[in-house]
Structures are given as structure tokens and as C-alpha cells.
């Protein structure tokens, strides 16, 4: 059984080794790490809902090539993001930058949590003031 699991694990681990990006890695592992992080956060515009790291359409490989070039030219991550946003808009980034246009995206979750918490609090407070119904309570307990 253990052997079987080991074999199964080996199979699954192999699949993660097969990468879409066949280009030569950067010599500097730091640059390579930056490159990999960047391409995993850029949306493939042609095959939306995939990152350009996971997609093999030519647009994704073109964008990888451009990002590689920018990194080689010594551009910062912010400059690479700028390059993409001026051409494709904020939508190209999986992690949109905070700006007037995207502010709503960033604050909406917090707003919803606060709003939901407040609603929950109101409901619980309201229920606490209700008289306890002995009959339904005991019924609930016996079921």
C-alpha cells in the first residue's frame, strides 16, 4: 500500500515539473524568482482566467518574452506592471493596484464583512429580546 501511495505521489509530482514556459531560466535565481512571480500574476488576455504562466497561447508567450526583456533591462516590478497596464488596462493584473478605479474592488470585501457583522449583531440582539418559547425549545431538544 505504501509503495502504491509512493508511486501515486511520484506521478503527481512529475506532472508539476512539466512547465509551459520552455525559455531558458535566468542565471540569477533571484531574477528567476521575480520573473516567475510576475508571470503568475499576469492575466492571459486571450485565455482569460489563466495566468500567462499557465497558458501556452502565443500571446502569453509573447508577454512572457516582454516581461523577461524588461527584467533583463533592470526594470522594477512596478515598472513591469505599468508596462502591462498602459497597454491592456488594470484587468491584466490579477492583483490590481490601488487607484481611484480599483478602490471599490479593494474596500468592498471589508465593507461587506462589516455590514454582514452588523446585520448579524442586530439579528442576534433582536432574538435575545424575544420571550423564550418553552414548548418549541423542549421539542427541539428531544428530536
Amino acid at each position: 500500500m505504501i509503495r502504491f501511495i509512493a508511486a501515486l505521489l511520484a506521478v503527481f509530482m512529475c506532472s508539476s515539473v512539466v512547465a509551459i514556459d520552455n525559455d531558458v531560466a535566468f542565471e540569477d535565481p533571484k531574477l528567476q524568482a521575480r520573473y516567475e512571480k510576475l508571470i503568475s500574476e499576469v492575466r492571459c488576455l486571450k485565455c482569460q482566467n489563466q495566468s500567462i504562466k499557465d497558458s501556452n497561447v502565443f500571446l502569453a508567450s509573447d508577454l512572457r518574452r516582454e516581461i523577461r526583456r524588461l527584467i533583463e533591462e533592470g526594470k522594477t516590478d512596478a515598472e513591469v506592471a505599468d508596462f502591462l497596464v498602459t497597454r491592456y488596462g488594470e484587468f491584466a493584473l490579477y492583483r490590481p493596484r490601488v487607484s481611484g478605479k480599483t478602490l471599490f474592488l479593494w474596500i468592498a470585501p471589508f465593507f461587506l464583512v462589516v455590514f454582514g457583522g452588523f446585520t448579524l449583531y442586530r439579528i442576534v440582539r433582536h432574538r435575545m429580546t424575544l420571550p423564550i418559547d418553552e414548548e418549541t425549545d423542549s421539542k427541539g431538544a428531544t428530536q
Partner: protein
Amino acid sequence: MNRYLLPLAAVILLIGFLVIGLKKGDPRALPSPFIGKPAPAFELPTLADPTVTVGSKDLAGKYSLVNVWATWCAGCRAEHGFLLKLAADKTVPIYGINWRDTRPEALRWIEQLGDPYVASAFDGSGRVGIDWGVYGAPETFLVGPDGIVLHKHLGPLDQRAWQEEFVPKIRAAGGNL
């Protein structure tokens, strides 16, 4: 009654958003960040003659269309007839960007189907396509005399899109058609 008011309002709001989402058309269509901004500068060899270049300088001083096309693109075949008609009517000059294609195939396409373009730039590497924010051919840009992008149309261009999108944009910018 009052306790149903808030959920009702929320549902109506949600329906409103859904209706807007449905009416918007193609959900994969992205607004171009270049609308109202200068068209990206470019200069590329022409498809017909690699020693001659075409680029931003050719677009200056008139309304023109920049049409991104490729021989592997089915939508490009669909719109080709309409582009030929626009060119024959001498409505606006059409400049092509032959994107991510090969010269022999592109030249054969032009030879077989006709050439609506004043000139086609050959962008085999897709570099200029990226500068223009192209993500799927065919895409057609309307560029004003001052080099400002006035409109971008995704997908095949036809009479209806021309009348409803391009003509009003040109008129609004002060051009006469």
C-alpha cells in the same frame, strides 16, 4: 412590511447589476486604455516591401483605421469584404498591422482576397501588437488627425459596427463623412 423592504431593495439592486451585465455584450471584451490617448508610436517594414517602413508618421493629419489582422484569424476573413468596400468607397484610409503571421501566407491572402490597405505593417514577432494592447485579431482602431485613438472595435468589422460606432465618433470629433 418594513422588514422586507431592505432585502427587496437588495434583490432589485442585484437584478439591476445582472441586467447591466447581460446587456453589455461580449464579457471578454476589454475597454482599451488608449481611447482618448495618443496611439502608440510604431514603425515597421511593410508587408509588400521589407525595405519600406510604415508607421505613426503615415497616420498623421487624417482620420484613419488601423486594422490588426492575420491569416490564421477567421474573423479577419469575415470582415475582409467590408474592408474592401470601405477602401473602394475611399471613406478612410485603412492601415493594416499583419500580426504574428508569416510573410508568404499574408502575401498570398492579399493576392487571393484583395488588398484594402494603403499599407500593411508586418509584425511577425507581435511586438507592436503588444504595444497596441492587441489580444485577439481582428481589432480595428480609429485614429484621429492628431494621432489620438478615438475608438477600438473588437471582432469583425461590418456595416452596422461602422455606422453605429465609427461614423458617430468621427462626426463627434469634427470630421466630415
